């Protein structure tokens, strides 16, 4: 598993510090470059500072829900893959909300293989994007 997500830039957003750190370590082991945000405000600031290939966002946070945060960030960052993590017991309503927003959702405790699969897709997309961007750059130079 190690190194599968090599070079992927991931932002973790969760108000639960233990969760944040654990997931950070896991993604790190998978080879991703991980940043963390313990609240919505920090997450927005991080996105202003740099672009991310993927963002794993907790659903329930003080001030703003994960879905609302994604709705806020997505227009400016169309290349980023967003994944919702939630501890909600009412799976159906969360599933519905995420389907409406076209965001994949994972329920806590997290199925790591599923998360890895979702983020691997993001890696592929990022590679393709980078390739495309390189080509575009080449063309511009030409």
């Amino acid at each position, binding site marked *: *598993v*190690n190194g599968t997500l090599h070079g992927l830039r991931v932002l973790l957003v969760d*108000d*639960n*510090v*233990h*969760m944040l*750190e*654990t*997931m950070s*370590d*896991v993604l790190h*082991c998978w080879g991703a470059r991980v940043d963390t945000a*313990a*609240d919505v405000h920090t997450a927005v600031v991080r996105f202003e500072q740099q672009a991310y290939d993927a963002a794993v966002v907790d659903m*329930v946070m*003080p*001030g703003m829900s994960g879905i609302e945060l994604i709705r806020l960030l997505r227009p400016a960052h169309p290349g980023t893959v967003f994944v919702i993590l939630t*501890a*909600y*017991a*009412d799976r159906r309503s969360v599933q519905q909300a995420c389907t409406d927003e076209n965001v994949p959702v994972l329920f*806590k*405790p*997290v199925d*790591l293989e599923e998360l890895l699969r979702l983020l691997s897709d993001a890696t592929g997309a990022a590679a393709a994007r980078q390739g495309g961007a390189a080509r575009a750059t080449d063309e511009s130079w030409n």
Partner: protein
Amino acid sequence: MASAVSREIVPGRPGVLRTLGPSALLLLGGTTAFETLKQVVYPGLSLWQSHAVTIVFSTLAGTAAAHFLLRRYRRTRRRFDDEMVRRRRTEDEAAAIEQRYRSVVENIGIGVAVVNRDMSVGALNRHMRAWFPAVNPVSRPVCYRVFNDPPREEPCTYCPVVKTLEDGRVHEAVTKTPDGTGTRSYRIISSPVRDSSGRVTAAIETVEDVTEREQAEGKVRRSEERYRWITENIQDVIYSITSKGTIGFLSGDCEGILGIPAGDVVGKSLVEAGSTVSVLPEALQHVMELYGRTVAEGRQAIDGEVRFLRNGEVRYLEHKGRVQYEKDGTLAGSIGVVRDITERKRAEAELGRRNAELVELNDLKNQLLGTAAHDLRNPLSVVQTASSFLLDRDSKLLTEERKATFIRRINASSQFMLKLIDNLLDVARIESGRLDLELEDCDLCGLVEDNLTLNRMLAEKKGIRLDFVPGCGLPTLRLDSGKMAQVLNNLVSNALKFSGSGTTVRVSAARMNGSVVVSVRDHGQGIPAEELEKLFKPFGTTSARSTAGEKSTGLGLAISRKIVEAHGGTIRAESEVGKGSTFTFTLPVAAAPPPTGPGRPQGDGR
């Protein structure tokens, strides 16, 4: 009748006078005329002439007298005959009347007997003879022997005949005689018979079988009693309205339901009655409209509810009525029942309110459960993720240091879960009213000091100064020291959780107006005013963030509030964003909560 007969029978003397008087006058006149004739005429006549005149005169006078007397006789005779005819006719009529009376007495449907002064039976009518066929009045049997079975040797004590014979008045009695099937009742009326001097010579006894009548009367009386009992004892009012729109009949608990005696409104029109019983005008209007509409449409049932003001109190009446029509369809009136349903209405409202409360409580419980599950899932997720990662075959690539970090997180998360579960159980216990306080005399200052000692290490680690300002003269309080320590720990650890390095958390305790006031003040980030309200509710977490990532179960303040309130105290929070918060709770000095511990001895309040 007797006087009429005597006047006709004795006209003798005036008749003789009327005959003899004129005869004497006639004789006297004739004689006088003859003497005058002799004196005046005779001297001029010869002897034979005078004889001839005498003869002629005498003949004329005699003839006239005879004629007069004959006429008189004839007239008298005719009168006598007429009298005789009239008398005979009268006697016949009297006989016929007597016969009719006799027939009536003989055939009347009640028994009639004549009882003489010596108590012998003088006569019986047919009815009486049918009852007593063996009694023969000819042998003058004694009444109490023959009219009783078995025969009596002396008159019955109640006998009205005896009384009538004694005092000459009418007397009445009812006797009951055993019969084959039951008891038969007879009413005896005794009336006196007097002779011409007014002396009571006998008594007429009428005997009537009144068994059926008594039974019928008893039935009617019982039915009336039953009806009266029902109408007087039912909780409803029964009424009737006449075709003219006036109240014809009003019965039942009129005073209890309408607040007025029935007599005040019976006979009045609905409008007049309405003003008497102060039916709310719109309610009365409603009733009148309903009534009018029902009649106009020719329907029968008028049912509805009326809001009603009785002695200034709003009552609700349920009304079930029926309009009655004659055969030709004209209005005959209406009848109805009015029932006071105020209590039912109140009970329904109360039930509705309680149901809403329960629904709300149930929603709250579900919400609580959902939140609890959510809050447990987070640390569980940490445990799961960290442990599965540690178990992964690639974990050998992890450094020992990183492995230790994972294990520390598992430990911390499971500790948090334990705390959350403990708190949830506390909340459940409190919500179900099973918060048992173990009260003991307690030094509050000592309790605060102990608590600060526990928290001082954490405070130093975060670079926070922890102060205690004990007020003077703090009394010994009766508290559950374990639970109160839980409250203090919650407030102090919260203050440390949200305070930054270099700030001060100050705990103070002071006596104020019969209460002890404990406050914990921090200089942390503060709580927005709109979030203060939900602070003491379960999972009522705020947007404030702990300064070192400490976690909250969201239940600590809710539990603290319940514990303080169980001690008869109050808890509140004041805060200003950017400046810090103050949590204050007060405990009454003299009060021990009534359901738990025994009361404090008197004079121990200091």
